[in-house]
């Protein structure tokens, strides 16, 4: 059965065509590579937009006192920065990588449900158009933090909160459909002989991420729906006066929220698990334990949510349970870090840009993991909570974690996408500037946080001035550097040394068996993976064993 179908249901024509011409190619496409590219570009735009909000924040915090913006606007900036980065930059980037790479990695011709795939993508610009437009509405945009705790987001919210709620709904629909597509693709479209335990880890981590998404995005939809009802229909879910409870909001939100942070990091784990072996020229150490560790992390992520609520007033048994459960996550996470380091041990390492980002990922993400462990100690968190220490923690897991994982993936697969090698010198410069910039920006936050500087505040005590200035300088450096990344990518698309089908000699996996750039349609006849040797497993194996 090899029908190419259009809306009118007549089959067979335009079988081996390339992309359509003009705008319709992008609006109507069902091609996983087109959709993947659109996701990645969308994500980068969101990254720049969210980044410019961060620049406003850091400019205001450059010195104590109010200089540039009013507190009301400052609050909108922190809120929008968080929302745009989480839902607009990080998540879509990983969906873009999934779209591009999963079919190539498992020998599938496309995603399982290609039209739904297009729908998932286009919902995002719609959702973000709506979200960003709130900044221009009367009363301003959302100003209650990306966690939008009630009653800040209900009783005291600006009118635009209604549109914020619907924007979240649209993003949620988009994520759920994207995740369903990934699950259906991985479970149903693997090439013959591509058993589950031969799949590259990126596919594994995405399968588990997709499960998390399908499990928790509806809960997010539930919590914003309750908000909508409280705001417009007089219900009292989050109002104790009617027998409800504002803390209920936090429970439901964090039941979504904690798995959400793993949604943002698991795919990066997977990508790094392909990249480190490639540049160590050794198979991944402990493939099977990586799979189980990912599963364990995903499971645990459902039973730790209240570590975000240690100070809100939960019963003592709750504090204890959530404290110990949270600490347990460090075990499978430690397994992973151990495996990455062991993969590098005695490898013949080279440090091209993907590897630089991957190694930095391992080191700096671990720092974020450790500060997480500190926060997990409930009595200590009484002090750390809502200080800049928390900001330092999650930026260490998100910037050199999620974002560096995305950069590493981008450099690793750019030759496959574009057919050209990127400019290695500039890429290394991009790495070092990002590395220095982000450490300058976020490391001092640990200190000011421990000293008591609260988060989400436009002004601060004089004693924090020096560190804040350092932070701001680092942040500007990091921000400006990302324009260099844009330049490198455009340069790579437009030309450069032609890339071989497999430009990295240590790389493994089916994606390297197709030419670079990958043709518009790949694997219309599935490759046979049955005779791929077992020891190749974990990196997807190769066609010629």
């Amino acid at each position, binding site marked *: 059965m090899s029908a*190419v179908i259009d809306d009118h249901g007549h089959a067979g024509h335009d079988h081996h065509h390339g992309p359509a011409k003009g705008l319709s190619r992008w609006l109507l496409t069902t091609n996983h590579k087109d959709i993947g590219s659109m996701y990645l570009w969308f994500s980068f735009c969101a990254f720049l937009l969210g980044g410019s909000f961060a620049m406003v924040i850091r400019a205001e915090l450059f010195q104590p006192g109010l200089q540039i913006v009013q507190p009301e606007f400052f609050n909108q900036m922190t809120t929008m920065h968080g929302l745009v980065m989480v839902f607009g930059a990080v998540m879509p980037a990983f969906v873009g990588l999934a779209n591009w790479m999963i079919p190539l990695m498992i020998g599938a011709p496309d995603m399982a449900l290609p039209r739904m795939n297009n729908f998932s993508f286009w919902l995002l610009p719609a959702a973000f158009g709506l979200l960003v437009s709130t900044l221009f509405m009367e009363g301003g945009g959302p100003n209650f933090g990306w966690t939008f705790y009630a009653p800040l987001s209900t009783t005291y919210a600006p009118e635009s909160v209604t549109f914020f709620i619907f924007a979240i709904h649209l993003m949620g629909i988009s994520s759920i459909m994207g995740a369903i597509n990934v699950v259906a693709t991985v479970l149903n479209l693997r090439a013959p002989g591509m058993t589950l335990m031969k799949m590259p880890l990126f596919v594994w981590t995405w399968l588990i991420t997709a499960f998390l998404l399908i499990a928790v995005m509806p809960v997010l939809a539930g919590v914003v729906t309750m908000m909508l009802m409280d705001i417009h229909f007089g219900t009292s879910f989050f109002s104790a006066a009617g027998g409800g409870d504002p803390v209920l909001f936090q429970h439901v939100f964090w039941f979504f929220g904690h798995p959400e942070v793993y949604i943002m990091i698991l795919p990066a784990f997977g990508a790094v698990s392909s990249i480190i072996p490639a540049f160590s020229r050794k198979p991944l150490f402990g493939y099977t334990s990586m799979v189980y560790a990912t599963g364990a992390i995903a499971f645990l992520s459902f039973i730790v949510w209240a570590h975000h609520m240690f100070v809100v007033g939960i019963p003592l048994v709750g504090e204890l349970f959530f404290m110990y459960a949270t600490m347990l996550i460090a075990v499978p996470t430690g397994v992973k870090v151990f495996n990455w380091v062991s993969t590098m041990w005695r490898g013949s390492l080279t440090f091209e840009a993907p590897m630089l980002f991957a190694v930095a990922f391992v080191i700096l993400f671990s720092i974020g993991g450790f500060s997480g462990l500190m926060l997990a100690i409930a009595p200590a968190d009484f002090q750390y909570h809502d200080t800049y220490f928390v900001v330092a923690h999650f930026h260490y897991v998100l910037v050199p974690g999620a974002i560096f994982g995305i950069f590493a993936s981008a450099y690793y697969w750019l030759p496959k996408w574009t057919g050209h090698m990127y400019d290695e010198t500039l890429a290394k410069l991009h790495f070092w500037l990002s590395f220095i910039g982000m450490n300058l920006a976020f490391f001092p936050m640990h200190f000011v946080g421990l000293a008591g500087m609260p988060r989400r505040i436009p002004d601060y005590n004089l004693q924090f001035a020096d560190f804040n200035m350092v932070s701001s300088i680092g942040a500007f450096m990091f921000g400006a550097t990302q324009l260099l990344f844009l330049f490198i990518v455009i340069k790579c698309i437009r030309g450069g040394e032609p890339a071989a089908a497999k430009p990295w000699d240590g790389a493994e996996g089916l994606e390297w068996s197709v030419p670079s750039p990958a043709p518009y349609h790949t694997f219309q006849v599935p490759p046979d993976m049955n005779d791929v040797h077992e020891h190749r497993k974990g990196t997807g194996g190769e066609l010629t064993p």
Partner: protein
Amino acid sequence: MSTHQTYYVPAQSKWPIIATLALLITVYGLGSWFNDLKADRAESNGPLIFFIGALLIAYMMFGWFGAVVKESRAGLYSPQMDRSFRWGMSWFIFSEVMFFSAFFGALFYIRFWVGPWLDGDGAKGVSAMLWPDFEYSWPLLNNPDPKLYPAPEGVIGAWGLPLINTILLVTSSFTLTWAHHGLKKNNRKQTKIGLAITLVLGAIFLVLQAEEYIHAYTELGLTLGSGIYGATFFMLTGFHGAHVTMGVIMLTVMLVRILRGHFNAEHHFGFEGASWYWHFVDVVWIGLFVFVYVL
């Protein structure tokens, strides 16, 4: 794993982008409408925008599903495509389960913790200082602050309409399965009768549910605004009712397709998917009946 030589790859489609626009227009209209209502603005173009969006959604649904039905009728779908649809539908239903879980979770949290705490019991009993006179009971017939949230005078008992509704929905699950068996045996008459009975039962359920709502609003003072009991009650039963409505629409489409001679004993995933959805809605109701009405 596939036994096929080549895969199915669909060409471009206009439906997703139309769907996106339709959804965006709908929510924008709805949002403006709600905001204008709340701010007491006399004029609002929200309803009109919403209405246009809703029409577009209907058009898109007809078009998109119509295209899929046509392709399926033309025999273009391989068993592999069929499996993709199955996975898609199963995980969609799982996401719906999680959506309802959020509201069930809220209900349990309120009943086991928040209520007693507000009454001075348990680990966080200090919350009782807010409204010292408040006494907790479930169903909640007195709210902490009755001025803001006037309490209902009564609630819907389990053993009247809700029991009848339970019987209706459970029976409808059986009649639907009977219809499915008919389809598998190529006994299309059985399928038609089974499906028709299912639809009638579903429709009666909706009518009774509407009746219950009217009763609650007009005679009991049980409303969305009557405190947390009303909030959880209407949220859970309301979303369930919306899902039953969706299910009725899906099954109606299936009945029309059966009458037009679609499906055969082997290939009828459209029908199966709709019936999975119906059974899911049924299971949710059992949960509702137990936790909202009985207990």
